[in-house]
């Protein structure tokens, strides 16, 4: 017992009808990296939030160094030596590194000893080779550096057990290597690390032990050396991983969508796209790969008209549409758009399913005439879409926020595809969906391809891209690195391009 730094015993936590953690056991050896592996919704985050004192478990107990501890708040967790780096950093953007680190630290007096803390933080930072300026404002640091500030914060608060929630999701492939080295240094310094991930390669690369969760339960707990990626994948998904959508042979037609040297800025006024040029033909799926934040969002927005370009041209069927409005692009030109963040851009969550189904055509006949709505036409339309796309709901008058993510995405697809578009821009259309919904979405996209639609498919999930795309282009800091035919697009080659290494 005593050789476990941390043990969770029979942890159960339910939210209403959903059991997020079902009698979970987790044992972590001191001075090791312990991976907790599982798909979205497997219960990893709930378990970690319990460990960190944000949620209270219904039953079960937590032991640190063999002693039972109660953690009912993050503060108590930290007092027991447990610290967590959240997937979304808990940093205050406009405070300095030092201020962020000492925030909420117990045992300080009323007066803030900035100079003293800064000196000690600098020493600690150097001893781990972090190279962080404690006086810098956090917002001015790159993401990888902010992650180090989070880790430094835990070290400065004397955390012994470090929970890292999907730490590599914010890193580019070439930042991942140095990050793993850092984990080794932490391990050497005697720290115990819990590493939450859904990526198999990472488990094999750094973990000493691995616990696999699925459906709120622990399915396996083994040494990393005693397992292999295939069996981990099987355990994680709960079935044989055989993922293949139907793809029929086809021929492509004329060029429909063309970008010619497009340069555009992002919301912060920085350059997001730099002289991007490509063309997409009728009946072709052109994929855009890249680490999140390399210009994908902006690319989708300039094509759909939500963002203006600084220079360059966008053409549809040979016609320059660079200055055309959003609604004309959607209407006359037939550019359909499945936005990346459906809650932010694609839906009005307070509105009904029926209203969301006409979001892009609300002012057209038969839905509206003389400035007023025709409710019957709107209801008939919604009922038809719901039937055709098999949307599961109680009523078309239901607020769309109460639909599942997959069904919300179906409403968007139905709305965008019903008018027989010529161009489809799909930005991360499978994000956050379960396996069944992913297959449905991809099948719909392939159906459109067979109909002769020119499709731009943006995704950060390489496997999904390779499943559906005919060609793949790679975006790296706003530039289109290269374009590969599906047959040549191996994960290795794309991975290099994603890291900014030209082939």
């Amino acid at each position, binding site marked *: 017992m005593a050789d476990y730094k941390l043990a969770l015993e029979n942890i159960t936590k339910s939210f209403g009808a959903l059991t997020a953690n079902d009698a979970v056991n987790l044992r972590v050896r001191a001075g090791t990296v312990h991976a907790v592996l599982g798909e979205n919704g497997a219960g990893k985050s709930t378990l970690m939030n319990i460990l960190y004192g944000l949620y209270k478990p219904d039953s079960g107990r937590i032991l640190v160094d063999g002693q039972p501890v109660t953690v009912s708040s993050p503060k108590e967790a930290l007092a027991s030596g447990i610290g967590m780096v959240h997937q979304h950093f808990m940093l205050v953007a406009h405070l300095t590194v030092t201020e962020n680190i000492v925030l909420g630290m117990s045992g300080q007096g009323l007066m803030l000893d900035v100079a003293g803390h800064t000196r000690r933080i600098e020493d600690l930072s150097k001893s781990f080779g972090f190279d962080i300026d404690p006086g810098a404002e956090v*917002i001015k640091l790159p993401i990888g550096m902010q992650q180090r500030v989070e880790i430094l914060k835990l070290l400065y608060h004397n955390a012994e057990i470090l929970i890292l929630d999907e730490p590599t999701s914010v890193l580019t492939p070439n930042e991942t290597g140095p990050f793993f080295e850092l984990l080794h240094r932490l391990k050497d310094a005697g720290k115990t690390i819990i590493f939450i991930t859904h990526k198999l390669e990472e488990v094999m690369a750094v973990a000493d032990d691995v616990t696999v969760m699925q459906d709120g339960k622990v399915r396996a707990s083994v040494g990393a050396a005693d397992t292999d990626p295939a069996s981990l994948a099987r355990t994680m998904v709960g079935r044989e991983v055989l993922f293949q959508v139907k793809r029929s042979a086809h021929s492509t037609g004329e060029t429909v969508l063309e970008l010619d040297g497009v340069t555009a800025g992002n919301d912060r006024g920085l350059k997001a796209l730099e002289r991007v040029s490509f063309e997409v033909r009728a009946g072709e799926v052109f994929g855009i790969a890249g680490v999140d934040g390399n210009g994908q969002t902006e690319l989708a927005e300039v094509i759909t008209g939500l963002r203006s370009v600084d220079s360059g041209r966008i053409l549809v069927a040979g016609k320059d549409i660079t200055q055309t409005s959003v609604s004309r692009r959607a209407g006359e030109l037939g550019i359909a758009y499945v936005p990346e963040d459906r809650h932010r851009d*694609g839906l009005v969550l307070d509105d009904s399913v029926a209203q969301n189904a006409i979001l892009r055509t609300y002012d057209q006949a038969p839905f509206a005439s003389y400035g007023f709505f025709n*409710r019957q036409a709107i209801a008939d339309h919604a009922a038809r879409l719901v039937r055709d796309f098999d949307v599961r709901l109680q009523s078309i008058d239901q607020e769309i926020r109460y639909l599942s993510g997959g069904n919300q995405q179906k409403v968007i697809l139905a709305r965008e595809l019903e008018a027989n578009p010529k161009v489809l821009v799909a930005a991360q259309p499978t994000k956050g969906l379960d396996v069944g919904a992913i297959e449905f979405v991809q099948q719909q996209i392939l159906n459109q391809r067979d109909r002769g639609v020119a499709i731009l498919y943006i995704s950060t999930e390489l496997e999904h891209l390779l499943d559906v795309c005919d060609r793949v282009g790679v975006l790296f800091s706003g530039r289109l690195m290269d374009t590969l035919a599906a047959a040549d697009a191996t994960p290795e080659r794309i991975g290099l391009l994603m890291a900014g290494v030209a082939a």
Partner: protein
Amino acid sequence: MDSVYRVMFHLRSVWAILLALAVGSILILAAGSNPIEAYATLFKGAFFDYWGFAATLVKMCPLLLAGLAVVLPLRAGLFNIGAEGQIYIGALFATIVALYVPGLPGPLHIVLCTLAGALGGALWALIPALLKAYQRINEIIVTLLLNFVALHFVSFVVSGPMMEKGAPYPYSPEIPDTLFLPHLLARTDAHYGVLVGVVIALSLYVVFQRGVFGFTLATVGRNPNAARYAGMSVERHIILSFMIAGAFAGLAGTFEVLGHRYRLFHAFSQGYGYDGIVVAFLAGLNPLFAIFSALFIGGLRSGANMMQRAMGIETTVVEAIQGLVILFVAASLAFRYRATAIGRAIARRQEVEEALDGQTGDRKT
């Protein structure tokens, strides 16, 4: 159980009123009078007395229009606290047309005055709207500050260039009697302005329920990003909603001049613009209910005069009661907040601002 709760919840404005009257009765006791007798006098005077009811309608007119001036922009998540100023500028424009545009037949001249008043209010509201849409300057602060500017400006006008010769107080000459709005109730002050207000409220209700504009306005308020994606212009809706709201308030000022006072007085509005906020929230931002809440607040105001004459209770007691009403309405929002129209309308305010940030290109994270 849930349905009981729901009914109770939807009646929250009624509870707020009852609670405010209950606390108000303590205030009346403190003033040394019998609350039951006082309320009886007040409500009898406000609603069950021919002259009193006419006085209620006179007050209801500006209250309703000012209330609608708050309701409309809030559908897009925007706060117009500037109805007071818009009332003044509207009244000023109407008076100028009434006094200095000669030779028109009466009815046409009334229409022209009315349009001028609406235009004045709309232009005054355009200032905060432009600043909000293109400079992201907080519309609440700007509308509040502009109220004081308008108040003093009208005060200057009626004590200087437009002052009646030899008048003891700052006011303009009387407008020609051909411009007096016809009376709704014979031998009283109640004029047709209140009917215009009711018609506007009903129209607004229909537009909110079934109109495309009601939908786009709400969409801009609920999710401005989705609104852009649907091809709606957030900036245009900010400007349009404020200008229409300003026009409503401008009409309130116009009818005060054409229907009630027949001159432009210094400081004539006495806070109708602010009372409009109470009307709007008491109505749960529903234009149809605004008719009733304006009638109620108008009744409180006119009944208070009755109460003072009959029992010597200070009219300021209804200001206190009105303050309690809005406080309790605000407090009632603590329950099932999201389910209310008010909650929905303003929960998205932040998002409008973020969308504007995104557009002007300096959103910081």
